[in-house]
């Protein structure tokens, strides 16, 4: 027989339930209720205790017992209260003969009773009892060590103070120093954040991270902001501070400061006829670096615009560009990959004068072809643009002039002659460039000598392939063609000629035989029949169970077939 004592913890109310359960038909429960206000006299009345072999016995002074309470509810059985009357101990007793094994965690006692059977008593409600491990006493020196357990807290992990290294590394913030205020800060590159796309000015610029960002500024009071907002004033981007050559923690020597030299700085913005002139729309920093010697020189260029503030508030897009360059690399354009093109990098084209990015016509807000802005072609992106070019009445009479004008519009300022095969092509290396094939209108139409064929669509067809290692393939261009599609001029509605440019990238990659160049196992077996076995062998996982299962299946199958 087992005796089990279930009880509320020491913190429970004096009316906590004490249950003693024994197996068999003798199982019974007593509910003890609070009968006295004090813990010391936490005497409980026993309901229905008379039928039970369990006797809640309270070792209490007799005077503490309220009238009617029953400390000993079965006549003839011994009472521990009698024996432990001098101590205030809560005990529940049962006849010793009923218990021959106990697994309760409480302190037990066997009490000999002179005129009856011995009692087996369980001591409850001892506040001193602890079945957990004894906690250590924490000294002040221990506290720091034990704090590592407090991971789950609103208190953030201690912030590491930025330590400045001896030189800038890629991605490090670039330090600037305000001479007048003697304040150290970082160079910032405003960027858009969140759904609004508004400028976040606190974004630090990273060393060697050449990139362009753009964001929007809102001016509710343009006339006030025009002159007071530093974001619109070119001077605030270079005056009063200098860039630190290398990051330095303490004293800043004069030789460590690099002044920012503005190239053709515009004047301060001013309001005129409700229009804010000279407002900065683009800032371009060009930073020369030299390895661990840090920043050698910084120059800044600006583009300004005029903001009209006729409506209540006006939005102004600003562009910020950081370019890092070094004298080690002579060409100014950044590489588009090394060696193969990176997906999304601009294509490099060259004519006899310079290397530049391939660009195509772009449309203005009203659908007309932009005179200055051109869209840069990105490697791998099939692109389509369309816009309308206005032709004057006089021009329309001169066919060759129109043709020339349209070809110039399609190709931009400088006609491209060669396209870089790889992203790291140098203009001096002949074999790194491929000649652009051009198919003009004159090639296509021969039967119509009188009509004026003008190009309306330019299809730039680029063939590329993957080369090199299978694990790290490099994209390279194998061929490019400018294919002009032409229409007779008279079939178009007069005035506006719709021009379309399409860029198509065609992947010519020929992969080696699957599994991609590795020696192939020749399964002369039905396709997929041994799939579970092949899967087990090819996939790294806990296949021991599966193998066992297959083995069993094979055994069963063979035994069936044998009999």
């Amino acid at each position, binding site marked *: 027989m087992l005796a089990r004592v279930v009880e509320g913890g020491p913190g429970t109310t004096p009316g906590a339930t004490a249950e003693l359960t024994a197996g068999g038909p003798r199982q019974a429960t007593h509910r003890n209720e609070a009968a006295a206000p004090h813990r010391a006299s936490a005497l409980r009345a026993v309901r229905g205790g008379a039928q039970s072999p369990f006797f809640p016995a309270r070792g209490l002074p007799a005077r503490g017992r309220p009238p009617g309470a029953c400390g000993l509810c079965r006549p003839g059985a011994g009472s521990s209260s009698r024996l432990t009357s001098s101590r205030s101990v809560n005990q529940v007793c049962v006849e010793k003969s009923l218990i021959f094994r106990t697994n309760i965690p409480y302190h037990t006692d066997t009490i000999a009773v002179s005129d009856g059977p011995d009692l087996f008593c369980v001591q409850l409600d001892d506040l001193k009892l602890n079945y957990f491990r004894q906690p250590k006493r924490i000294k002040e020196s221990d506290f720091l060590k034990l704090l590592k357990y407090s991971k789950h807290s609103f208190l953030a992990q201690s912030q590491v103070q930025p330590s400045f290294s001896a030189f800038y590394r890629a991605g490090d913030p670039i330090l600037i120093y305000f001479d007048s205020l003697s304040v150290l800060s970082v160079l910032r590159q405003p960027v*858009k954040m*969140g*759904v*609004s*796309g*508004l400028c976040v000015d606190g974004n630090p610029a990273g060393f060697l991270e050449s990139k362009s960002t*753009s964001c*929007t500024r*809102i001016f509710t009071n343009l006339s006030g902001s025009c002159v007071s907002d530093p974001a619109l004033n070119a001077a605030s981007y270079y005056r009063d501070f200098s860039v630190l050559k290398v990051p330095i923690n303490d004293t800043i020597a004069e030789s460590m400061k690099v002044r920012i030299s503005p190239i053709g700085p515009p004047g301060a913005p001013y309001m005129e006829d409700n229009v804010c002139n000279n407002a900065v729309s683009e800032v371009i920093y060009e930073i020369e670096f030299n390895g661990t010697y840090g920043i050698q020189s910084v120059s800044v260029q600006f583009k300004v615009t005029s*903001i009209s503030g006729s409506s209540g508030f*006006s*939005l*102004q*897009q*600003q562009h910020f560009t950081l370019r890092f360059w070094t004298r080690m690399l002579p060409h100014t354009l950044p590489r588009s990959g090394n060696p193969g093109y990176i*997906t999304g990098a601009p294509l490099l084209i060259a004519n006899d004068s310079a290397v530049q990015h391939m660009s195509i016509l*772009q*449309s*203005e*807000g*009203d*659908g007309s072809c932009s005179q200055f802005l051109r*869209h840069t072609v*990105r490697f*791998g*992106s*099939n*692109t*389509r*643009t*369309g*816009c309308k070019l206005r032709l004057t009445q006089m021009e329309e009479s001169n066919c060759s002039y129109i043709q020339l004008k349209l070809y110039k519009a399609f190709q931009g300022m400088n006609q491209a002659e060669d396209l870089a095969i790889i992203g790291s092509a140098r203009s001096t290396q002949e074999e790194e460039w491929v000649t652009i094939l051009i198919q003009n209108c004159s090639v296509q139409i021969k039967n119509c000598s009188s009509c004026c064929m003008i190009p309306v669509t330019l299809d730039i067809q680029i063939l590329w392939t993957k080369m090199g290692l299978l694990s790290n393939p490099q994209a390279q261009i194998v061929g490019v063609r400018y294919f002009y599609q032409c229409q007779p001029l008279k079939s178009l509605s007069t005035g506006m000629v*719709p021009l*379309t440019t399409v860029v198509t*990238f065609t992947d010519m990659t020929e*992969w080696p035989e699957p599994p*991609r160049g590795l020696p192939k196992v020749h399964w002369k077996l039905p396709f997929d029949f041994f799939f579970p076995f092949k899967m087990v062998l090819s996939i790294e996982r806990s296949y021991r169970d599966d193998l066992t299962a297959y083995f069993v299946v094979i055994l069963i199958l063979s035994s069936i077939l044998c009999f």
Partner: protein
Amino acid sequence: MAGVELFSHPALHTRYRAGLCSAAALALLLIAVLTYVPPLLVAYRSHGFWLKQSAYREQPTVRFRYELLFVATTGPGPGSFLAWSTFPAFNRLQEDRLRVPLLSTREEDKNQDGKMDQLHFKLELPLQPTEHVVGVQLILIFSYQLYRMSTFVMQSMAFLQFFSPVPGSQLYANGDLKLNQRQLLNHCGLDTRYNVSVVNGTSPFASDYDLKNIIAAYRDRNVTTVFSDSNPIWMTGRGANTPFIVNATIRYPVEVILYQPGFWETIKFAWIQYVSILLIFLWVFGRIKMFVFQNQVFATTPVSPVLPLSPVLSYKQHQP
């Protein structure tokens, strides 16, 4: 007695003979019926005897067809929208509301298994400073092919629509092109029921480009694809002279495709179920049969096994 051997004890090689119309023969027939028919009933009545449908996983071969239809709502008025599509007839119908966007797309095969895994789509709609986009409707058309069971070829679309009370600068969506199946596919053959264009680009009639009609005709199909991005991101704060941008990534995930199993696959699974139950019945009724004949429940003539070169042989020959 008619000399028909009804049963032969497997171990003792005793043969039991009786007439064709005897009680033993009838009992044998009954036992045979009870052996072979109830397993069929058990297998059938416990459901799933005939395989009605089955599933497999396959990554579809999806390619963007470079066909799209785009409508941008620029205000509350009925005529305030800008539209463009790759269909010349639609563009002609738009007249001055036509605005040619800049498109830039790239399909990517990430795991280089020869099947495209996602499409990066970017559309830049040039806008005048006074115009504001408050809603976007975009149909992208794909060719969708499945090969593993039946060769299933269709032209499908991804439809993206978003409206906002706040004029936007950019709409960003990133989701899967999910297959939506209302009907089981075949297990073999070529299925080109839906290999018809979603938008009839050759038609000059405006009704063929009405979004309502396009969607209605498309949803009539039993197999379609849907673009599942329940929460596109709408960004506001467009600067003057900057275009409105739709930026979407459309993934082509591996699909679980339900199909109607073929005749032999159905028979195979039914056979597996029937035989596995039959084995138990065979064993049980084999024992019963053995008991019946060994204990002569029905009158039969037992014939002891023949021992070669023994007089028993002649005895046996005269037995009938």
